[in-house]
């Protein structure tokens, strides 16, 4: 009896291990999904073009700030503000790529977009000339939020702001600080772009294994981290008081500008969704992406592919955000529940990405370092 069982089992095992073809019956893919193609699409059609869009826009902003510093008046101020917004929107497309040089700089985005700014640090720096933008203490006193303060919030009206850079006793201090901030932003950005275009791209594309340090796994983690923290929490959750006992209307992005927090959030959400779908930065063609990977893996849930569920959730969140005041601060003061409704819609997608998608990819995540069973 036992001999027979052993025979059957042995045969089953041998069959299981030896037949190399006639395997299409299950309808499962015979080709392996090319993860390297996914990384190529990300690098060549999304990440590098997004940086190449952002870089020149930041340089333009730098030029207009230099003009403003040279001759501060209403028209140079307005030119600087216009280019600030253009660059800030372009920034929303690259903040999530905290990989390679961006990560090696001790988090490039720490120097670009930590808000709210600590006004006292800026004002002290302006007064004393004593500041070091390289240190973590000044993360919240530089980047776009610092420009936001200096170009929109340093005085009550435009005339007052121009006066800060002309007649004010500390005018030179303001000019120096403003110049240092934009120079630093430009310098770091050029470093990141140069790295991508001179070698890192190949390294990124070729690291497609399922290990904790492969660029594929890191990118998935970074992408989700950005969506959860940079987008959901920073732009909507924290100001609307989800993580505090009361709402914090002054913690919105672009607080001093007073009218772009919604536009920046929508820009960021579009950027996230485009990366998810593998949509080219310049154009509308799509390539290998998380979406096509989920389709390859046949991750069907409740009769549709998980990628469709995630896209639907992104769209729902967008609709909720579009219904908000263009200035989130105002929205929080007048009717904060709309903010928390938008937060909930964003949060549901966190679960889809972090639980359902990561589970389907069965990614070796960097943070879990122990045996399983």
């Amino acid at each position, binding site marked *: 009896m*036992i001999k027979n069982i052993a025979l059957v089992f042995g045969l089953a095992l041998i069959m299981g291990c030896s037949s190399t073809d006639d395997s299409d019956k299950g309808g499962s893919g015979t080709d392996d999904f090319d993860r390297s193609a996914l990384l190529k699409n990300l690098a060549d059609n999304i990440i590098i073009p997004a940086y190449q869009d952002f870089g020149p826009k930041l340089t333009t902003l730098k030029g207009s700030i230099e003009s403003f510093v040279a001759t501060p008046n209403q028209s140079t101020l307005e030119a600087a503000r216009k280019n600030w917004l253009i660059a800030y929107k372009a920034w929303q497309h690259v903040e999530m790529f905290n990989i390679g040089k961006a990560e090696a700089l001790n988090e490039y985005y720490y120097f670009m977009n930590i808000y709210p700014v600590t006004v006292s640090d800026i004002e002290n720096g302006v007064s004393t000339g004593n500041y070091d933008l390289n240190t973590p203490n000044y993360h919240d006193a530089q980047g776009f939020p610092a420009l936001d303060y200096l170009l929109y919030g340093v005085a009550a009206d435009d005339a007052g702001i121009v006066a800060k850079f002309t007649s004010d006793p500390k005018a030179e201090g303001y000019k120096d600080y403003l110049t240092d901030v934009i120079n630093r932003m430009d310098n770091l950005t050029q470093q990141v772009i140069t790295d991508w275009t001179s070698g890192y791209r190949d390294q990124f594309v070729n690291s497609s*294994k399922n290990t904790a340090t492969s660029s594929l796994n890191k990118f998935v983690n970074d992408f989700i981290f950005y969506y959860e923290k940079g987008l959901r929490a920073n732009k909507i959750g924290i100001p609307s008081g989800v993580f505090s*006992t009361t709402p914090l209307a002054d913690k919105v992005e672009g607080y001093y500008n007073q009218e772009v927090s919604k536009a920046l959030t929508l820009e960021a959400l579009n950027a996230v969704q485009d990366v998810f779908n593998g949509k080219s930065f310049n154009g509308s063609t799509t390539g290998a992406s998380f979406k096509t990977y989920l389709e390859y893996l046949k991750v069907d849930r409740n009769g549709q592919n998980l990628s469709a569920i995630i896209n639907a959730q992104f769209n729902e969140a967008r609709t909720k955000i579009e219904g908000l005041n263009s200035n989130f601060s105002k929205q929080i003061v007048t009717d904060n529940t709309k903010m928390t409704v938008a937060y909930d819609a964003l949060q549901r997608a966190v679960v889809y990405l972090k639980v359902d998608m990561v589970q389907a990819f069965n990614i070796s995540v960097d943070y879990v370092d122990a045996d399983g069973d």
Partner: protein
Amino acid sequence: MSTRVKTYLNNQTHPAPLAVFRIGFGVMMLLSILRFWWNGWIETLYILPKFHFSYYGFEWIKPIGDYTYLIFAVCGISAFLVAIGLKYRIAIIAFFLSFTYIELMDKSAYLNHYYFISVLSFLMIFLPANAYFSVDNLLKKKTYTAIPKWTIDSIKLLVGVVYIYAGFAKINSDWLFKAMPLKIWLPSKYDLPFIGNSFMQQEWFHYAMSWSGMIYDLIIPFLLITKRTRWFAFGLVVFFHVFTRVLFPIGMFPYIMIVTTLIFFDADFHLRILNVFRKLLKPFRVYSENLKTQIYHCKKQKLVLPIITLFFVFQITFPFRYLLYPNELFWTEEGFRFSWRVMLMEKMGNTAFKIVDSETGHGFLVDNSDFLTSFQEKQMSFQPDFILEYAHYLGDHFKSQGHKNVQVFAESYVALNGRLSQPYIDTRIDLYKEKESFRSKNWILPFHDEIKGF
């Protein structure tokens, strides 16, 4: 007691298999402890976290700061003493206690194979594993030519129980008819040479692995116990465990199982192994020829046999305790642990906690990373007893921070074996008021699906 049982209990056998087993077990345990230490896991799992998840009833067992290293040292040294058979009884008791203490410190690190080690080392306390080829022999100047056969059989029985229960647990609709969770796990091994891009991506292969895994677990004890199939069975054991080691991060466990199954071989085989050891020991001039030889008699057999009987009654019944709970076992995990349910589920969750002032209704969400390591957070997010314990910890924490009328609510989503994530915990329930117990937790939301089988 019937005469057949009596005769069986009086059966004697050569002690060599138990001696080899003792050596193999001790060496594997020593290596496991060293590996754990070397990987820095003592620090990351037991020293760094601010908060530890306890087993119900064992809340008093906690890491003890830097002294935790001392517990591991005791565990490693006692494993070594077990291996060489020096002061065996004290060593195996010290090993059992220190190892079990380590396992009880934080249930985030629960693994079935750690439980297996605890259980096995408990059993070994009652076995004369130092009767042969041990330093104790040299010290007492006597060695034994025979020990009761049941002592070796008890280890075989325990190994058999583990395999068969693991096999039973695989007889469920997700495992057999959906190939879950292997269908999720195997395709992600795409970077394995040769099989990664081929077999691992094939649906039929996922099914073949599921079914053969189930059959393997159910029949391997019988193949091992039968002399004619033993070598074939051992080949399967090696193949199966090495294969799972390649596929999954399961550490030392496969090697421990391979060494453990050697116990099924006859004394001749073990004597040959011991002869190899003897040759290796020759330069050390250990003279064992002058030892007195006698037959081992278990002096306290009247006490030991009832303990071992109770032990096996417990091992056989305890995994079935899930039958006492009304809901889907995989979903609620009530009665899931300590039941040899190995690698059965791909389950992940995302759980956020809201601290609310019951008077004003105002509340805020907690950032879990302020309190938990990412490993703990991952474990907490899909296991109800973790969620409850953590909710109480948060409630106590914020109360001590001066928050008034503290209520703790959880919003949790969990995805199981390829199903879409769905709400897990009733968001209206103040978990701070709920108490841990062996009762069914009525604040876990229904699964809305059925997994048939054991």
